[in-house]
């Protein structure tokens, strides 16, 4: 794999992930639909990563391990998508301007190979209490 690839993450909605979250925030179904990052094919090639591979997504705010998913959209190198969730929120800064809106749709982060497992919701809860 290439060392590190920089991306801007845009969070979006998905009806299947939304439905899973309504049923349970603590289910495997919700985790599997949330702890993923949708990447352009070129970015996956740059990372020498495959669909489903675990990636460490990191920035100044935090880090998470999620699964890579290949985008079916037209080319969007450098732009990645995540479904809005506690996983994506680990990377969102709470430094806000006059508008009070955090940068949910403009998260700068780096991607690299992950040595650990997919981040669990219990780990996120533990971080909040730490």
């Amino acid at each position, binding site marked *: 794999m290439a060392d590190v690839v920089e991306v*801007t993450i*845009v969070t*979006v*909605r*998905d*009806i*299947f992930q*939304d*439905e*899973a*979250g*309504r*049923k*349970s*925030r*603590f289910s495997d179904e919700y985790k599997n639909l949330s702890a993923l990052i949708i990447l352009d094919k070129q970015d996956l090639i740059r990372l020498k990563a495959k669909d489903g591979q675990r990636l460490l997504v990191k920035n100044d*705010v*935090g880090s998470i391990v999620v699964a890579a998913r290949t985008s079916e*959209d*037209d080319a*969007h190198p450098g*732009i990645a*998508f995540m479904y*809005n*969730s*506690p996983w994506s*929120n*680990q*990377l*969102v*800064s*709470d430094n*806000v*301007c*006059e*508008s*009070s*809106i*955090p*940068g*949910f*749709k*403009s998260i700068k982060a780096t991607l690299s190979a992950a040595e650990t497992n997919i981040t669990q*919701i219990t780990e*996120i*809860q533990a*971080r*909040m*209490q730490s």
Partner: protein
Amino acid sequence: MATCTGCSLLCEDIEAALENGALSHVKNLCRKGHGHFQAAFTERTVPMIDGQQVDLDRAIAKAAEILRNARSPLLYGWSNSTLEAQAAGIKLAEKLGATIDDTSSFCQGILMERILSGKIPTCTLDDVRNYADTSIFWGSDPSSSHPRHLSRFSYYPRGEKRQKSYEEERTCIAVDVRKSATAKLCSNYYFRVAPGGDGEFLEAILAVLDGKIPRVGDKKKMIEFGSILKKTEWGAIFPGLGMIYSLQDKMELFERLLAKLNEITTFKVIPMVGHYNMRGFNELMREKTGFINRVSFKGGARAHGPEHSVVAAARTCDAALVIGSDPLSALPFGTARALARLPLIAIDPRRSMTTDAAKVVIPSALSGLEAGGTAARMDGVRIKFEPIIDTQLLSDEQIITRIMEAI
């Protein structure tokens, strides 16, 4: 007939039959609504203090004690509560000298403020069904967020003036950073914007409408977009968070577009509000305080500003009450952690990351299914609903009233 409170369309035509305490048959619910209804039967909360189950009276008394002893309490959530509960919440905030805010402060608030003050023209969804020949989903993806929007109002129905509907008379357009489920449906009328590029996109359309060549973007596509707008008889724009987060302090450009379009034809705007009664909270707050959100009643005053948003107040308050919302899951990590470290009171029908971290948990009845009330649909139309399930659980309004009495 039941009303679904799964999103701000508040569909009133839901048929639901129950057998042995579970849903045995439902009709007219979308996938999201089905998840919302199913949720009534799993992971329900019980009254708790410090992780120990207690009786409801003790949980309410403890919540009152925390709020009474706090110097700067924050009351947050409200977008998933009825107008009656919201009104009680605003009274509680006044009584406590608390800060009160809802989800709109970090989502549709900056657009809703312009809608409610009349700076941007709006209409009802029924007008859209009857008259609209062009619907523009801008940074919104109703197929994921408001699944019955297109079938009930904006694309498929045969309205009074649109009997030939989507086959001949309606066009739907998507402006988005990605080819969303809705954008795929709009097929030829999908216009891609770069992340954060909505301001430039707006400037390009304004140039086209002025008969100029746009300086940015795909010129041919922009000219095509401009000509659809000009040919529209009655259009509606449905902005989502994609547009709002991208524009923020450039919202004036959107106002200019609406002014320009309404010189040529008719165009209205309905914000794609997520939670079922966010708009209701904004309307009530505006009526009572002059501001739609982010208000502090400290010292008997009515201060408004970004320092009273949930994101800022989470760091400065010394206790928080969260109702019908899961900020620990929905807000940035820093805000979630700040809230998790506070004496936190969570009023919620179901388990969430917020109830898990709360010092006091108060279970509530699920609006629409177990509790009745009134809510404002995304277009402001007030919808009254009755519960379809009998329950001993208190409604949000009853819980807030009980806390207020205990204080």
